[in-house]
């Protein structure tokens, strides 16, 4: 049985809600619980989790507490506990036991007057105005928040540009400044590469792939996914490219993301060609262009890193590409060992660019996919919670992160979906990413491995599980340990997202 209660006009941060739900799920007799803001997307997610939401009239400003349990007394107890925890989180004392921190922007600047960057991570509807305040005080901005209106983004970037400042974002998950990570990022070495990326897993994947080839990154500038669209005009991308091209510590420039609007792409290429600095473009899914050394054009993230690493080390990019291509045979062999099969591929991604790349790799192998973030509009899923045929879902998309933690931090929903896919008799391959690094879940592999094991209970050996780990040896989660955990659960772990996607393609018998 279930109970749903609404707390009107109350905002709670996603971390608090996640922690409260975690505590409720430990209570005897509670089978499921969820605390979310009353957005349309969250209604759908509650429904997909088995809650009956008919007649619930919560608005996006209201908190929904939903609990399923064995009987009324369990539900009464759980709701009482939920409200107590929300009012006075038991972990708050521990969290607030540290230093006193200023509560206002001006207070923070009084303490640290030489600050030159502000990281903003508040609800999207407030983030834009706060970012403008920061720009007004001469700060560059890393806008981690998503759900910031496009018009606001344009206004912010134009204002910042006039002042010689950068706005990195919105939805910028990763920035690296002089090797120091802001947001989600990996513990990789510092070196002569500068990366400009839409920001997020595209940047992370290139960052770690470079590190695995012995090449470090000095700066990684996130621009936000919409920056290279015509409306925004690539304001941040162009500024970042100019800065990195003129930085003598940067020997190789990498620009990566989804394909820009043509006029933006032309401007970027023009800047790079005029500078003469070795550069690699990884516009995933872009039009095929030819290399014009020292400018190289790549279509996948690992390939981008591979070529950039070769340039940074003074090696031959052609040879590097060739070595990478040669790994395909190994993947085919591995597919035979695992066992090729008929059926559908379902992708469950936490990284937007990784999701995008997976779709493209599969398309290149003749596998058309549906998605909530498709590279082709015609393949947009009508309902992200009801995948059809081959579907690759980005669980980091805005629809899933309003009032919820990003799936790189909270894997609960993705694990639930993994289990749900096991119940679909037509699914034969499940593909997913595991992102490590600062800010990410401390042990994603264990959670996913448990979900895979539980899924096998439903599907037997019907489903082959394929994953890649976007991580590096020094990441807090311990890359090797995470890999072993997944492999112990029978997951085929590949060296990169592209390789994992390719293996998934090879697993399908035609």
């Amino acid at each position, binding site marked *: 049985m279930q109970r749903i209660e609404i707390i009107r006009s109350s905002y709670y941060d996603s971390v608090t809600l996640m922690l409260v739900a975690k505590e409720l799920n430990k209570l005897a007799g509670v089978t499921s619980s969820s605390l979310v803001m009353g957005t349309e997307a969250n209604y759908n997610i509650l429904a997909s989790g088995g809650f009956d939401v008919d007649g619930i009239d919560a608005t996006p400003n209201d908190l929904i507490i939903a609990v399923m349990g064995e009987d009324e007394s369990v539900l009464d107890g759980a709701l009482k506990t939920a409200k107590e925890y929300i009012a006075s989180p038991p972990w708050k004392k521990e969290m607030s036991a540290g*230093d*006193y*921190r*200023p*509560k*206002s922007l*001006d*207070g923070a*600047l*009084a*303490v*640290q*007057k030489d600050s030159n960057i502000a990281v903003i991570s508040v609800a999207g509807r407030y983030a834009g105005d706060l970012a403008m305040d920061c720009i007004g005080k001469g700060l560059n901005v890393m806008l981690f928040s998503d759900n910031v209106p496009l018009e606001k983004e344009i206004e912010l970037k134009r204002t910042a540009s006039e002042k010689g400042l950068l706005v990195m974002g919105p939805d910028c998950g990763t920035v690296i400044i002089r090797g120091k990570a802001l947001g989600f990022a990996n513990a990789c070495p510092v070196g002569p590469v500068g990366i400009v990326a839409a920001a997020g897993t595209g940047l992370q994947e290139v960052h770690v792939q470079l590190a695995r080839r012995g090449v470090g990154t000095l700066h990684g500038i996130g621009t936000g996914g919409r920056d290279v669209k015509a409306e925004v005009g690539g304001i941040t991308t162009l500024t970042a490219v100019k800065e990195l091209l003129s930085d003598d510590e940067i020997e190789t420039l990498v620009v990566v993301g989804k394909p820009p609007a043509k006029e933006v792409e032309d401007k970027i290429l023009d800047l790079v060609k005029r500078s003469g600095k070795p550069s690699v473009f990884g516009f995933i899914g872009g039009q095929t262009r030819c290399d014009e050394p020292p400018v190289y054009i790549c279509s996948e993230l690992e390939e981008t890193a591979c070529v950039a690493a070769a340039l940074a080390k003074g090696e031959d990019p052609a040879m590097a590409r060739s070595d990478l291509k040669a790994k395909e045979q190994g993947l085919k062999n591995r597919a035979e060992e695992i066992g090729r099969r008929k059926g559908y591929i379902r992708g469950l991604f936490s990284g937007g660019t990784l999701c995008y790349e997976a779709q493209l790799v599969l398309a290149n192998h003749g596998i058309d996919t549906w998605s909530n973030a498709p590279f082709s509009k015609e393949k947009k899923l009508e309902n992200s919670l009801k995948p059809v045929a081959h579907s690759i879902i980005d669980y980091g998309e805005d629809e899933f992160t309003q009032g919820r933690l990003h799936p790189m931090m909270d894997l609960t929903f993705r694990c639930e979906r993994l289990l749900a896919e096991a119940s679909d008799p037509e699914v034969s391959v499940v593909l997913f990413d595991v992102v490590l690094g600062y800010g990410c879940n401390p042990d994603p592999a264990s959670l996913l491995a448990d979900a895979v094991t539980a899924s096998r209970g439903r599907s037997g050996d019907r489903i082959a599980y394929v994953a890649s780990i976007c991580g590096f040896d020094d990441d807090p989660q311990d890359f090797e340990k995470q890999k072993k955990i997944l492999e112990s659960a029978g997951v085929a772990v590949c060296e990169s997202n592209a390789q994992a996607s390719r293996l998934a393609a090879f697993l399908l018998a035609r």
Partner: protein
Amino acid sequence: MSRMRDIRTRPLSVSADWNKSLEEYKVVSVYRRTVNLEDTDGRRCTLITEQEDFSSRTALVESLPVAEEGSFVSVAAEDAKIGYNPSLQAAGICKKWRPLILEWQSFLADDDLAVLADVWDGVNWRPLVGLGPGLTPAGDDFIYGRLAAHMRLFEDDDSVVSDFRRDYRRGSTSKLAEGFYDDLLARKIWKRGRALLDALAANDAQRVLDAVKCLIDWGHSSGRAWLAGFAFGAGEVL
């Protein structure tokens, strides 16, 4: 009651205003970290065990004597060094700290200080005397903070301090709290507050943050109430 002169303590250090020639004190109240005493003039004197708790007429001891309220103890301080000078010197507060200081006004929004927020109109301190939670009522802590800000900024009494000095009615609050008013008006300040003032004067950001933390951690609400009062006081002048 018989005097129990057998309880004797020798402080490690004392505040600069501790009367070293006096030895006998009556125990007024006993707490986990402090013992409040009364000297022969009826003034509050305190035994403490932590450096941060220094204030006026305070003696730092290694351990508190085991004594009951109403009993007598002997404090032999003739050889004790001076551990703290409670004198409050006027020195100004750099305006750059204003935005940070004003943040502390928001402590009045805390649930346990709502009783102060309900009556504080930004000017009239009178309803706050003796009001609110705490061994020294939070309203008094708030007024201490506000007066401390004004006294830090001006060597002589300004209108806010004069107004208080003129209109405060004795017996409006607890004896302990009243004693602290007397000390403050004699330009004596407790160490936690002094640490904040010194940090602000030194323009040392980390020291400021540490001092604020130390104040927040004091008592249940005393520190926050003091900070809120200080913030209002400083905000009136900076």
